[in-house]
């Protein structure tokens, strides 16, 4: 029975379903949370979910990391695809940069206004 659990399609199904459940949780957070900090953290959660999905989908049973070691010296398709990993490396850093910037804005906003609730942000709009 454990053998069937170790097959690639099953692994893919688990990874895909699991990461999209996390994605959904993050999306609910973005849509319903009022605290700005929590909203941006929910975005982080959604991004992490996508990273897990992408990398997990490219894994297949028996494949190795794309790094030449003493055991594996040939770069062929017994190695995992390196491009998704490179893409995700880049995107993780972008995610951190955007999160840091967003949180610095939230901190400055808090110093100027005293709150960080999105439903009390009423400076903009036609009435003002």
């Amino acid at each position, binding site marked *: 029975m454990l053998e069937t659990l170790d097959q690639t399609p099953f692994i893919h199904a688990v990874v895909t379903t699991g990461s999209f459940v996390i994605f959904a949780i993050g999306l609910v957070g*973005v849509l319903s949370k009022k605290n*700005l900090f929590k*909203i*941006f953290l929910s*975005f982080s959660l*959604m*991004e992490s979910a*996508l990273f897990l*999905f*992408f990398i997990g*989908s*490219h894994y297949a049973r028996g494949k190795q990391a794309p790094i030449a070691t003493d055991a594996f010296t040939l770069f062929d398709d017994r190695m995992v695809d390196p*491009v*998704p990993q490179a*893409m995700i490396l*880049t*995107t993780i850093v*972008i995610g951190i*940069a*955007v999160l840091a*910037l*967003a949180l610095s*804005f*939230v901190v*400055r*906003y808090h110093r*100027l*206004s005293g709150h960080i609730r999105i439903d009390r*942000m009423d*400076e*903009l*709009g*036609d009435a*003002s």
Partner: protein
Amino acid sequence: MSLLSLIALPLLAVFLTPFYRNRLPIVSLLLSLALATVLGILAVRIPIVEYVSFASPLGIVFFLDAASLFFAGVFIGIMLWTALYTLQHKSDPACFVVRTVFFAGALGLVLSGDLFNLYIFFEIASISAYLLTALRQDQKGYAGAIKYMIIGSVASIFLLLAAMLIYLNIGYLTLPAIAERFATLPRDTQYLILLLLFVGFGIKTEIFPFNLWVADIYQAAPTRVDGLFSAVLSKAYLFLFFRLLYALRPEPDVYMFLMLTGLASFAVAEFSALTGRDLKRIFAYSTLGQIGVAFLALASHDPVVVSGALFLIGTHAIAKMLLFFALAIVEKGTGSVRVEAFGRFRSPFLTGLFTLGFLSVLGIPPLAGFIAKWTVFKGLAAAGHLWIVFAVLLISLIEATYFFRLLSLRARSEKSVPLTIPPGHKVLLGSLGLGLILLGLFPGTALELCTRAAEAFLAGVPHV
């Protein structure tokens, strides 16, 4: 001469900022002149296909064809104009860095031909836009920037998922490779990817129903930055979305749906502008309306209409730069951007310029906007969409209402606040107004350029 120098030069200038932090206006001007020269040199050799890192279709590709040349030209022109305008200002590293990266990002968006590379430039342009919004560092600015970041992150995530699905299903990241293989995907996967792209780009190109936040952003950002947003940012995303769309070759139903979305955008924006009491918001809604028309025209997939759309994009960029920069002067003089402030300043020069801007956006002859709209209508009628022409004309009546209401404020109110405008700024603003008149009277060459650009645009991506 490498295409990449259009990206490398601005980035180099930005990274080396600490070494000349007191002479940034001159550096900005020199940079814009250098980019204009490079573009001129490259323009004669179009179409150009350039590989990055290693000369193979497996690498990142950059394209310069008539369509991307048009947009790159408009952006560099605006960059040069802005550099000239700020020549007398104090050397401000924050302004210089963010503005220059903004332009570099916009140029990358129109030149790159690789999906993930485009995502990177997408993020570069977005982050510089967030920073530009918060540039004044006041409470409104931060509120606007935070809202912008929230909706912008949604767009990024949708685009990231679309890019991931494309790589999973197709295996390649260059646009030509994707274009070749997209039609072989199962139908529901195709529609899912198109839907994700529509939402992601819909947010960034500011069409209905994703543009409910845009007026807030324009209100929060410094007034001159709004000019850059109107003229450069939304246009870059428009170009990119349609470049992708034309390359993916979807069903005609998709095009019809997008045309209706553009029309709805136009309608909702103009109605919202009617009840506005803040000038920046009114101008923002006007921009949204024009984007709706451009979106509608680009989605029609017809060569004449698309060339009209490109002409519209160019002339609208000039008009909105003029309007927002003039509004900035009014704001500084009267201290307010409420509608009432529009009646309080005394400057026949600015009154003339505002009139020119409004009339061009409306599409009144003999100004440039008229040629643009006329070309679009002509093409739409010939392609069998006459009812759309009538709808647009009808909605333009609303546009006319609020523009003429503003102009009447100029005519009958007591103008108490005199405005002093430095002669350099007068010349630059005047040149924009003159441009609108000249393009309206002698559109020949410009229209020819737009027609060639439209051909290249509709042909999809060059083959590698």
